[in-house]
């Protein structure tokens, strides 16, 4: 059993989405770090070792799928659960996300509660909402 989630790293290039995520997560008691693109997120993940990463897909520099693959390939970050939160909603994209090792895949538009609920039940497989 892993430690309960405390620190979350979010990666999204849209400042409004970041603002929304920061507020929602902080109100639920998590400490949040923001990254504006995939490359920044990769560096921060290594440096801060967050308990969870929430990543967009379409970001500048390194996109979310590449970020995910990089994280899973690196010994230092491979155990950090990654939630993909994206507007890319096609079956192909969702499948690619799961394949790349995403712990969860949420499509925009989304209910912030859905994300919080997932994080709260991260260690309890029966408590997960169904994958979308």
């Amino acid at each position: 059993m892993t430690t309960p989630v405390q620190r979350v790293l979010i990666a999204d290039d849209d400042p409004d989405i970041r603002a929304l995520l920061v507020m929602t997560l902080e109100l639920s008691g998590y400490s949040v770090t923001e990254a504006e693109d995939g490359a920044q997120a990769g560096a921060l993940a290594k440096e801060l070792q967050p308990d969870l990463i929430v990543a967009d897909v379409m970001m500048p520099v390194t996109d979310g799928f590449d970020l995910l693959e990089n994280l899973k390939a690196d010994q230092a970050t491979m155990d950090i659960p990654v939630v993909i939160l994206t507007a890319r909603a096609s079956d192909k994209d969702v499948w690619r996300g799961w394949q790349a090792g995403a712990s969860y895949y949420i499509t925009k538009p989304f209910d912030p509660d859905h994300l919080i609920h997932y994080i709260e039940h991260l260690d309890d497989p029966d408590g997960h909402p169904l994958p979308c």
Partner: protein
Amino acid sequence: MLTALPVTLAAVLAAAALADGVLGTVPPAVLPFAVAVAVLGSVRMHVELGRHAVSVTMVEAVVVGMLLHLSPAGVVVAAALGEALVCAWLRQSPAKLLYNVASTSTAALLAALAFVGFHDGGAADGVTWGAALAAACAYATFTHASTSLAVSVMEGSRFLRVFTASLAPVAIASVISASLGLVAVVLVSVTPGAIALVAPLVLLMIAETRRLAAHRAEHLRFERLYAASSRTGGLTGLAEVLGTLGDEARSLVTGAAGLCCTAGADGTWTGVVVTDAGARPAPGPVVEAIVELVAPVAAVEVPGRSIPTTVLALDPSAESLVVARSEEGAAAPVVLAVLRQLAGDDGSGARAEVLAAFLGHASLTVANARLYADVEAALAHQVDLNRQKDDFVSAVSHELRTPLAATIGSVLTLRRMDERLNPEQRATLMDVACRQAKRLQRLIEELLTLATVEHGEAPRIDTPVDIVRMVDDVVEELRAQRAPEPLPPIRFVDDGGGLVRTSESKLRQVLSNLVENACKYAPGGPIDILVHHDGGTSRIEVVDSGPGIPPADRERVFERFVQLDQSSTRSQGGTGLGLYLCRQVAVLLGGTLTLDDAPGGGSRFVLTLPSPAPPPRSERFGAEATPLLAATATGRDPR
């Protein structure tokens, strides 16, 4: 390599005969016989077999005389010398000369040995004459076989086919000329005047053999025509079609180089030239010269001296050119041309006709290939359009989902966590929701505009639009939108009046987009708007002092959903459709929209519009205009 065969054979036989001592000596009488061989040998008729021809001569008449009067060694030397003279006279290649001389020597040696074997040097009786006749026929058979072997190797066809296809005229000519030669030799030994009896028969024979050879050649040509038509029917690629047609044409009328030219929809002629080395695009001047050589629906054989030099460069040894051109209303305009190494003869007209007959088929094949290419291009275009549509739908889906996510997320959070939010957080969520909802609204409006613009419905372009007032309106509207945030300073220079006849709403849309963009990327300003009337066009420039766009990306900004700097665009509520729409609208209004460098390093968007009537001259500046800039822009010094 082919030449090595008869040379070796001749050497082996000569060595064997020398060892046997049957060859005898070479008497001086060899020379007249050699000359006779050369004279009769140079009168040759050709049976054309594809790209090469088998020649028919009447040297057997001399061969009979040689057999009766010379030792075997003398026969070989006379025949070889005669053949060498003929080859030199016809300017044949060294390899061909060597091959021909070697095979002639071998044939002469075989004939001489056969003759010596049958008669024992006795009296001039029937056995001697029979042996001479038979030996002359053996000579003819061997030379024909060796020629057929060479042709079959060069044509890549079966030996037996080549041998039999041209056998009839060769055999008839040999038998008759050998008999006539024998008659002449026997009678001349009685009285020299007897030659007068034989001469008319010889002339008649020559004429008849020519006719026979031409007939046979024509028959074979028609056979090839059927085969060529059936072989080229199912071809589709245009380059392949032109190459194959050129190749078939040259084997149809026995040429070394074949050309197939066709004119595209724009009337430009292009062509492919085919030689033994393969097919390649024909040089432009060659195609032009060929096409000019012949009028539509005509087919001719041109003698060597009349071939244009540019065309002759393809094969300097060409002796004639057969060329045919399709009629004006043909399925596709086609010109076929073949450079022949044989000079024109009785068959010239027949060759031109066969090429003309093949032309009808060639024209249909070329037209077919063109249609096929058109269909393929259309299909590829459809596939591409479909892919573009898919890309667009997925991009739109993404662009709609993102602002919707921020809006819904903010509203849901506001409702659920109302009591836990402080006023500042509440204001932030409200702002996000409003901003993103507006972005959504704008995106939907632009998508709707896009639908009409892409439909290509031209707006009514007959409203006189006052550009000065329109720019004022656009700036004021933007100022109100951005309040309380101030706009960067905007300077406006108009070099003469402001009336443009165009669609007001569409122009406003473009201007508003351009000015808004400039404000976005150069928030510190200044922004210059310059209007310039020049004859039939009005030029509106929106120049900012922002970071500018690198030349490589300048066309990309006009593509759909391309945002060079996504984060800043999104934070500004951009949709990625604005500039794409502006350009579409500009084109719809009959103008253009381009992007280049501003002198200060920023971006300069230039919108040109056709303006039928140049409006009266006036000058006006925006609120923050400076006289200095006005002077720079209009080229006048206010001081």
